[in-house]
């Protein structure tokens, strides 16, 4: 029988994890990859907020609807020639009175490759299972909930709007390109179709999943030497106990499930 036992029910665990998740702070990453047919360099940041906690014996803390608010800044490298037809300004012949006919040559228009900065954001939800981990590291006992496995991210309905927004951003960014005016609307459609919702989620998923998978939620932390009475004078020193072992598990103590921490101590 352990000398110290503490337990919290699901309600308290919810409140507790609210505080823990809020304390995790934003996470960010950057890199380069492909988004649909585009080369893209990006930086993405995300912030977690707690969902609904369900304690499942013997060792699982399930958080349903864990929310990740993310924002991304990306620069797409876009070869307009991949999307737009080859065009040219035709040869023009003009009759000059009393002189004759003068003709200009055909002029081939080469579509440039452009860099388009885009910014967008949304949120995803995921249900994650935390496994309980108890470690003694550097004289400190740590109890953590660690996300198990790779969660499946549920993208919100705003994803479609993001894809459309990228198409519009591309159209706006290339408005300076000579002769592109009549092609802008078609370009936005082509870009949107080339990326697609699946393309965006397929690109974004692997980038932001690490913000959740493997995340360690601190549950409890305590030095193995625990002061129970402070020193009162030079001849009356502090009294400490040693925490020999810490246990953490989810127990079903009717009528509810509880997260139970236990400790064995010695003087």
């Amino acid at each position, binding site marked *: 029988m352990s000398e110290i036992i503490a337990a919290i029910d699901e309600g308290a665990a919810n409140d507790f994890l609210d505080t823990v998740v809020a304390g995790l702070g934003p996470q960010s990453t950057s890199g380069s990859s492909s988004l649909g047919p585009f080369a893209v360099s990006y930086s993405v940041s995300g912030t977690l907020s707690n969902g609904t906690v369900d304690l499942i014996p013997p060792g699982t803390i399930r958080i349903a609807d864990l929310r990740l608010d993310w924002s991304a800044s990306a620069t797409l490298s876009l070869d307009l020639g991949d999307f737009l037809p080859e065009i040219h*300004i*035709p*040869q*023009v*012949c*003009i*009759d*000059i*009175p*009393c*002189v*004759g*006919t*003068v*003709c*200009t*040559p055909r*002029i*081939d*228009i*080469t579509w440039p490759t452009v860099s388009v900065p885009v910014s967008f954001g949304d949120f995803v939800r995921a249900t994650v299972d935390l496994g309980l981990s108890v470690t003694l590291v550097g004289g400190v006992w740590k109890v953590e909930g660690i996300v198990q496995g790779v969660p499946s991210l549920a993208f919100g309905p705003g994803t479609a709007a993001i894809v459309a927004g990228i198409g519009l951003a591309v159209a706006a960014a290339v*408005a*300076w390109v*000579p*002769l592109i*005016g*009549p*092609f802008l*609307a078609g370009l936005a459609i082509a870009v949107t179709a080339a990326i697609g919702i699946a393309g965006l989620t397929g690109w974004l998923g692997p980038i932001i999943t690490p913000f959740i998978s493997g995340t360690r939620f601190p549950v409890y932390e305590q030095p193995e030497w625990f002061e129970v009475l402070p020193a009162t004078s030079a001849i009356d020193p502090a009294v400490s106990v040693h925490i020999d072992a810490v246990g953490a598990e989810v127990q079903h103590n009717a009528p509810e499930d509880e997260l139970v921490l236990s400790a064995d101590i010695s003087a």
Partner: protein
Amino acid sequence: MSDHFDSRALRQTDCYGQRFMRPGTYAYAIGHAGTAALAQDHPYVVVVEGDAPKRGEMAQTLVTVHAEGKAFVPDAPKVTVNAGDMVMWHCPDPHARPFAVSGEKDFFSSDRLVNESGYSHAFTCTGTYEWADAHGSGAKGVVRVSAPDSSSDKGIRAWQSQQRQGVLVMVKDGQAEPAEVDVVLGQTVFFAVVAGPGISVTDTAVLEAERPVPGIAFYRKPTRGKDAVA
């Protein structure tokens, strides 16, 4: 979005044409816009043969200019034409720097268009463009470029047809006729200089950018017109 044009600085969408009325050998250089007239070497030639041209009979020779490193090189260093024919220079490279054609003879220069010469520009951006002679003759005009109806196949076909129709502006003694023209995106305007003291067809936005800045000593001073500097 704008399409600044300047006959003194030829680009992919520009052409310079010069008609040669008398037999002879006319040497010229091709150089960066603004400095071509300073060229000491004129390595390329136009050889003009034959008698005086017949009215209304003009052949045309196209010289394609290529940017090679810092230099501009014509596809044919020597062209031979008949008196009265026109030679037209054009650089198809969209990345080439602006250039100018400068002959040994005064009449032969894209920087100053004199009798029997011309400049064409294909407008690739919509808008209203005012142009004027940078050399101060007072020649000026307006080109309004509208967007085509690209919402239907019929509109696109109409646009493509319009692009094949050039618009002519005749410039004579400092007067443009017509002074104002309306074109559609991608359409070409040919400015034919019938007679004049040596003019340019320059977007006034370019001229505005060339205005002298206090504290900067070097700028091109007009040698003709009301702002002329002796």
